């Protein structure tokens, strides 16, 4: 599906919404020391350009990787604040990279940067622990902003991503309730969270959403953050359950 989670025409005065609508405390992470970033992309062209942009903006690029396995090892070795990850790299899918890092207990936050995401790939990477997704055609400013936000532990949500997350909750909600007691119930969104997610999906900025719902910008941010956390938590529980089942049956 083109233009779903990503659309090069989207960036515009308002199109960068979730990013542009951010409040004023951005870049605070840069106050003490430069943010450390690892860039993983199998295209040298992109890898170099992204790294250069980051260095020019005062970030410290502590490592680069050209495939999935080395993205994992570089990230574990250098413990960066942010891993900028291309979705489709040789050797390992983006979701597998995220899962490996999570399993190894890496504190690095992951921002996915991709030229065109198949919705399934984007969703599985987000579920596996990435907290942001940006298309490569986003402008340099948007990109740098996204890296800062990711480093601060804030989700980088586009309208397309909100749609994917919302769709995933809808899907989970429509599954029959588990019969066995030890199977975790599907996570549910609160009414507010659903409302916020739907508004983000329609391309509204956090600021606009805050104005419409008479809540603070920060609250909007928290709602979005919560939806992501619930999804990732559910994914982890599912993985553990799957691993235990496999372990018992073998």
């Amino acid at each position, binding site marked *: *599906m*083109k*233009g*779903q989670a990503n*659309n*090069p*025409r*989207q960036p*515009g005065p*308002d*199109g960068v919404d979730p990013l542009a609508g951010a409040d004023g405390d951005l870049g605070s992470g840069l106050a003490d020391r430069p943010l450390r970033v690892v860039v993983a992309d199998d*295209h040298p*062209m*992109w890898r170099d*350009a992204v790294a250069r942009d980051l260095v020019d903006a005062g970030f410290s690029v502590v490592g680069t990787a050209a495939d999935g396995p080395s993205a994992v090892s570089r990230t574990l070795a250098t413990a960066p604040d942010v891993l900028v990850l291309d979705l*489709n790299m040789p050797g390992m899918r983006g979701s597998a990279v995220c899962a490996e890092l999570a399993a190894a207990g890496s504190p690095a936050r992951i921002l996915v940067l991709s*030229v*065109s995401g*198949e*919705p*399934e790939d*984007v*969703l599985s990477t987000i579920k596996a622990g990435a907290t942001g997704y940006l*298309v*490569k*055609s*986003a*402008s*340099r400013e948007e990109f740098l902003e996204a890296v800062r936000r990711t480093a601060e532990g804030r989700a980088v949500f586009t*309208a*397309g991503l*909100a*749609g*994917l997350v*919302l*769709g*995933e909750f*809808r*899907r989970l*909600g*429509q599954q029959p309730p588990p019969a066995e007691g030890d199977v975790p119930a599907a996570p549910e969104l609160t009414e507010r969270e659903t409302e916020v997610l*739907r508004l983000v*999906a*329609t*391309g*509204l900025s956090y600021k*606009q959403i805050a*104005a*419409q719902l008479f809540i603070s910008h920060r609250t909007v941010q928290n709602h979005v953050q919560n939806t992501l956390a619930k999804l990732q938590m559910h994914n982890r529980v599912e993985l553990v359950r799957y691993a235990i089942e496999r372990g018992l049956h073998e």
Partner: protein
Amino acid sequence: MTPQSTPATDDDSLVLSALWGALRVFRVLALVYALWSIWVRHAEMARLDLALMVIGVLSVWTAYMYVSRRRDLRIHVMEMVLASAAVMSTRWFDTPLSATTGDTTIPGVWQNVPVVAIALILGWRGGLIASLVITAVMIAQVGQFDSEPLSNAGLIVMLGTCLGFGADVARTEQAELRRALARQAEVAERDRLARVVHDGVLQALAFIHRRGRDIGGESARLGMIAAEQELRLRALVIGMPLPELEVAIAGPVDLRRALDAAVTESATLVASAEPVELDSAKAQEVVAAVEAALDNVRKHAGPQAQAWVVVDDLGADVVVTVRDDGPGVSQDRIAEAAQSGRLGVSSSIKGRIEDLGGRARYLTSPGGGTMVEMWIPKGRAAT
């Protein structure tokens, strides 16, 4: 398996091949049976020597057919003639009882071989005709209509027709399978192309787009051109429709995919990763309504306005929301437009959605543009 290496024929069918193999063995066994049954009644045979000569001819034929594995119609029509002759020879060479009652013949059951073969080649009609021919020959041998062969005719006719019908089904299945394989190959090729394009061209176009904009001026214009092509190409490789497949699977369609075509140029489609299935007629109406909404965006919010089309699958209903970031239209103005007869907005969207048993409403918020929300029940329309 390389499809090009062997020319595809009907006999690629496993079922048909197995039947031909069985027939080849049956021909030998039938001959052994014929020989044995002649041995049992050899004392009463009118011309044992000539009967054995008939068996000899059939043996040569059987040996040839066993080795050559021929499956063409011509050879089996010849086999039919030979079998008929062998049946007729019963009249003169066999025991008087066989010759007059037809309870057995010199070829025994061997004459059924060409019936089966022709059924396999020509299908149920061929099998029916072949079985009727051989029955007629057997009745002619006895020289009396109301005879043993007539009462056995049912079995032979059933054999010919049923096997022929089976062959027909096997052939149809085989053709279906071939088509499915071809389609699969098509999809695989498309995926391969998509990967290649994704890894090379799209990356480069996205790069030009971004760099161009960063540099500014003339380069920014080049960047915009690259962006446009990137969008088109991505649409092509990711959302390429397979019309044949869509038609083959009539019924529910994926609303995301249906909408995809409508929103390519003008808006961003936001949806789940999972397909959103909707009855195909309904989906068409929804697409038309969304197109109308996007038309309104172009007309009222200007060419600079951006739009988002959000598909939210609630299970029993689908909610499609179209929002733009234009100046927005007040509720009063929409009502006013409806009253003054300028129903463009209402009828083309509301009408369609209400026909589907759903409802549509307009929302507008300052700075938030105009929003159209359409609820469509997935089940049968109320009309």
